[in-house]
């Protein structure tokens, strides 16, 4: 195909033609704008939903391996380090993150806006590998401090005397307790229990310790255990717990993250006791310990209902309270697979090994999202297809009007390809303008939906800040989509115009 018409002159001719035929093109552009807007809007919506559902809720490239609830032999399968190593050696596996549940009764309590909250933790406390949340916002402090840094120096025992002890006696008692700093752990525990403070973890002061530390059961400064909560628990608190207990709601999760809530919520965790617990574990010894946790962030990877701490703490506590066996068993193993195409083969291997995959609706949801996206895309295609027909009509009409003009251009040296290029160029520019306007409309509509959602829709688990995902690929694709359909619509008129013998065109 040979063009005599250079790109610069082509643009000039196209610009002039569009300017003088602007009225004709308005209706066509309107269709393109609406079609592109719906295309971009729905594609971004499905992309956004897909991102939340398959990225956060049910990651499609992530498999959670669990032990089967029953086996043919009756011998339970356990998830332990040998399995972790085996999985790690599998091809296509990019990350292995074991999870461990707290395997004995315990209780948490904390003060939130002046209200004392108590909640059971046995079964509601998960230990996860800090690597699993690495890179997530606000999770830098999610580390096993005691394993990495160790415990600090001796702290003042700081047990606040109960009210029935007179102030003068209290001072003496404090002094006596201070003298016990060097005593053995058993003596310390016995004294505390004898004084009736054993289960009152909030009585532990952190005097003599740096900030973010508490005075542990062994009267040594320990960094508070970093705790992650899920968005779901915040939303549950706001939606049900706070209203029924006359408490102030935290607000949105984003507000909770931004406001002091994150810094003030300290959890006093009593290990070894709980008012009620479904866990049937024979404890190694009748023992209780107080530890203090500090909420450091909100994570989608945290246990939905409960608190999540680095796995090292859980492993140590399980070992101390429930024994070595419990401390060596994982509740599940999260496995990241490099390519989602590798997931089926990995899941098959997991089954062959006698384990199961935690129920994931990723596949089903993926299919559902695909079908819904397809439906929306078909609608967009219909809208823009009608616009393309409209574009074709407009160009047929314009070519009929500009017949002589085409003849003149041919007489002064335009090739057939030049005529085609002029018309297709006009169509492409109209498509581009329509595409950009449509994209703007789509993005505007998306922002409006997000705004309405943030202001008027109550928080729900995994509620995203935006429902839309306008990727650079989508933006480019939407504009290309508009240009493509406009050019497609103008293709036949352009060919017809180019095929006109110049003499006939000049004759009008």
């Amino acid at each position, binding site marked *: 195909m040979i063009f005599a018409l250079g790109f610069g002159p082509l643009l000039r001719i196209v610009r002039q033609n569009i300017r003088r035929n602007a009225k004709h093109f308005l209706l066509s552009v309107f269709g393109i704008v609406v079609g592109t807007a719906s295309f971009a809007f729905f594609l971004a919506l499905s992309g956004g939903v897909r991102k939340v559902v398959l990225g956060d809720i049910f990651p499609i490239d992530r498999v959670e391996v669990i032990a089967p609830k029953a086996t043919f032999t009756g011998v339970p399968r356990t998830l332990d380090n040998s399995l972790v190593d085996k999985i790690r050696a599998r091809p296509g596996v990019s990350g292995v993150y074991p999870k461990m549940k707290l395997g004995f009764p315990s209780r948490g309590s904390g003060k939130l806006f002046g209200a004392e909250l108590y909640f059971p933790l046995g079964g509601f406390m998960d230990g996860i590998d800090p690597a699993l949340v690495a890179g997530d916002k606000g999770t830098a402090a999610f580390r096993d401090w005691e394993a990495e840094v160790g415990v600090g120096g001796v702290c003042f025992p700081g047990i606040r005397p109960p009210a029935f002890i007179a102030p003068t006696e209290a001072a003496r008692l404090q002094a006596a307790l201070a003298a016990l700093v060097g005593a053995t752990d058993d003596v310390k525990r016995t004294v505390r229990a004898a004084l009736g403070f054993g289960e009152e973890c909030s009585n532990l002061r952190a005097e003599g310790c740096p900030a973010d530390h508490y005075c542990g059961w062994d009267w040594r400064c320990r960094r508070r255990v970093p705790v992650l909560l899920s968005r779901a628990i915040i939303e549950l608190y706001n939606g049900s717990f706070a209203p029924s207990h006359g408490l102030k709601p935290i607000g949105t999760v984003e507000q909770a993250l931004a406001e002091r809530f994150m810094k003030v919520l300290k959890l006093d965790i009593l290990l070894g006791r709980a008012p009620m617990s479904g866990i049937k574990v024979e404890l190694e010894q009748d023992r209780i310990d107080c530890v203090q946790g500090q909420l450091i962030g909100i994570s989608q990877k945290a246990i939905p209902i409960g608190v999540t701490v680095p796995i090292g703490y859980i492993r140590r506590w399980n070992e101390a309270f429930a024994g070595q066996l419990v401390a060596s068993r994982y509740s599940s193993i999260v496995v990241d697979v490099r390519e989602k195409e590798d997931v089926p083969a990995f899941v098959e291997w997991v089954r062959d090994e006698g384990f199961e995959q935690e129920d994931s609706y990723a596949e089903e949801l993926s299919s559902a999202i695909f079908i819904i996206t397809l439906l929306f895309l078909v609608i967009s295609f219909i809208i823009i297809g009608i616009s393309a027909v409209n574009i074709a009509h407009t160009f047929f009409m314009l070519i009929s009007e500009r017949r002589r003009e085409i003849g003149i*251009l041919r007489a002064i040296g335009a090739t057939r390809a030049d005529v085609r290029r002029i018309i297709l160029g006009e169509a492409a520019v109209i498509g581009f303008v329509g595409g950009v306007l449509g994209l703007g409309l789509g993005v505007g509509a998306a922002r409006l939906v997000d705004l309405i959602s943030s202001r008027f829709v109550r928080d729900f688990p995994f509620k995203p800040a935006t429902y839309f995902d306008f990727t650079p690929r989508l933006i480019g694709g939407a504009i290309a989509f508009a240009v493509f359909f406009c050019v497609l619509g103008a293709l036949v008129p352009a060919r017809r115009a180019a095929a006109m013998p110049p003499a006939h065109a000049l004759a009008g």
Partner: protein
Amino acid sequence: MVAEPIIRVRGVEKSYGEGKARQSVLRSVSLDVAAGEMVAIVGQSGSGKSTLLNIIGGLDLADAGEVFVEGRDYAQLDDAALSRLRNEQIGFVFQQFHLLDHLTVVENVALPSFFAGGRGGAEARALEALGRVGLRELGDRRPSSLSGGQKQRVAIARALFHRPRILLCDEPTGNLDSETGRDVVGFFQSLNRDEGVTMLIVTHEERVSQAAQRVVRIADGKIVAQEGRSVELPPSGAASVRTDEGPTP
């Protein structure tokens, strides 16, 4: 003087329509035009003179026969080559002027530069062409604001933009009053005489044909007579007639 014909037409036939509606417009027309010659083609409406001009200009295709312009056989030229020939070597002047109203006068004149592969200085050359027809000062005007004579002169300036060797004119004075028509014809004569531009003018006006060196008469799609003084051409066929009589340019 013996010169190679710049235009050579051999046995050209052209008809329009299909089946019973088929109408023969040109019947075995042959014609030679020497370089630098000014030829008038005359005949009644529908005689085929404009069709012959269009075929010579490459604006229409002959059903049969051969057309050579500047030694190039149209049958061997593809669309791009034919377009380039029109752009560089042939200028067209039409009765209807065929100017584009959405462009200024100078843009109309410079329009052929758009299809000339991006040669620079188009505006300066357009103004120069306008200067040749005496309209340099009207470059910024729109064609709609010009008189008929001015429009035709702008169309002539556009035809001359690339300094073509051949100017094909289809009833160039048809829409002009007699005085303006005379001016245009005078300009054509000077162009032919001073710059050696070969001119082929389709007309039914006596005064235009009188200005030509040779007059070719067409009736019912056939050349029925050629009269006038012509530069000498090599033998080229029965239809090519050379006489020493005829109007003096």
